[in-house]
């Protein structure tokens, strides 16, 4: 009886381990899911902001680590910010990133996305999932996801488009804003950017 119990326990724990989704499987799954939604939804293709925001909110945001992203972008000034400032910074940066990401999504047409094989050791806690967007008549656009292992699964903490990290790209800009008008100054610029910027049609 005792044996059976421990056997069951082992079986359960290994089942739990197996359920922890590998990072590349996770990204691939979300990508496929999101693409299928976009392909079927004419409103999203036309750039309907409400629907895109909904899609991003439900399917993508849970897999992003915005706290880490903000820490990377704010860099040395992070430690100088009060907990309250850190909270506002994270919230505002998240808003900015989500809007940029949403706009990028509405540009998606029917490009094929390839995932490269993942090289990963079992004890890795950070990993890069690499993918490529193929497009006609041009070099493929690489899309790399930097991911970290957290208690609630793998989370994206940086996205690199054609080798340009969206997160580190804010570092010097943020540092300069802080130098000019302090951390509150940076917050103010972020807030006004988030309130003021309206998607312009081109």
């Amino acid at each position: 009886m005792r044996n059976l119990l421990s056997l069951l326990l082992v079986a359960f724990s290994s089942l739990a381990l197996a359920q922890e989704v590998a990072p590349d499987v996770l990204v691939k799954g979300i990508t496929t899911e999101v693409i299928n939604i976009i392909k079927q939804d004419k409103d999203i293709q036309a750039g309907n902001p409400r629907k895109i925001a909904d899609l991003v909110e439900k399917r993508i945001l849970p897999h992003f680590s915005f706290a880490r992203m903000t820490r990377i972008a704010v860099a040395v000034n992070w430690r100088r910010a009060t907990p309250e400032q850190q909270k506002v910074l994270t919230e505002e940066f998240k808003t900015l990133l989500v809007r940029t990401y949403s706009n990028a999504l509405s540009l998606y047409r029917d490009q094929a996305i390839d995932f490269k094989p993942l090289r990963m050791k079992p004890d890795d806690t950070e990993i890069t999932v690499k993918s490529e967007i193929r497009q006609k008549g041009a070099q493929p656009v690489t899309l790399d996801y930097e991911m970290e292992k957290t208690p609630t699964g793998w989370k994206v903490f940086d996205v690199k488009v054609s080798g340009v990290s969206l997160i580190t790209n804010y570092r010097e800009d943020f540092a300069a804003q802080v130098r000019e008008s302090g951390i509150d100054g940076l917050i103010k610029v972020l807030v006004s950017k988030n309130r003021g910027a309206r998607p312009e049609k081109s």
Partner: protein
Amino acid sequence: MTVLRGIGRLGAAALLAGLLSACATTGGGSARDPLEPLNRAIFGFNEKFDEVLMKPVAQGYRAVLPEMVRTGVTNFFSNIEDVWIAANNLLQGKPESALQDVMRVAINTVIGLGGLIDVASDAGLEKHNEDFGQTLGRWGIGSGPYIVLPVLGPSTLRDGIGLLGVDNAVEPVWNLDHIPTRNTLYAGRAVNYRANALDAVRLMDEAALDKYRFVRDAHLQRRRSLIYDGDPPREREPENSSSALPTPPFSALSTLGLAAAETPANETVVPQSDVNLPIADPVAAGEPRGFPQSLH
């Protein structure tokens, strides 16, 4: 005529080099951008130029021509570029890539109707992105300060010399002797290029707090990535930043201030400079790939 053009080009490159080595270090701002005030002025001009001329023309071009035609135009110029890309791959010690490029040109020219259709990509021969600035980078020459070129846009001292001094000199379109044809091709290429970038620029406008800095840093990141063919060595996390930066190695162009510009000299003064990543050359930061060390 050709000689005259050659002299003009060399002169421009030399002027650029002289001007920049003269003011390699100034305080404040980004260590990679000592010429920020000048660059910002040129950036402002370029933005205006884009707003009143390039963007509207590109929008019209995109509205009038069907996508198939525009892809054909892109492919045509891309096919011409591939010849020089092959040469650069060879110079960088990557003969397999160079061979691929040559095959791309052959296939696209013959089967792809003079380059209008990119048959090679469909056949699995991927397009590469190379230029002489990247070749110099692969050879271990640092990027030098960031420079915004009038009309042409973001560049660096190294890449500017590569572009104006070498890329242009060997470029088939530039070397056409029939000037109206040359100018038409130039204009067509510029408009097509701008049209392809319409969406990306709009995204950037929305993402940036300060567009000048955003464009600059994205450009520098992109160039670094290109030099490593999309696989640059991992950079330090800024969260646990240390101020130790690798010292740039001696390079043949150190007299031009190229190597010196790699080290943020005013590191202690500028608080955020430990966040600045060394735009170090590949050989210093990682292992040289494919290029013999002995040639340094």
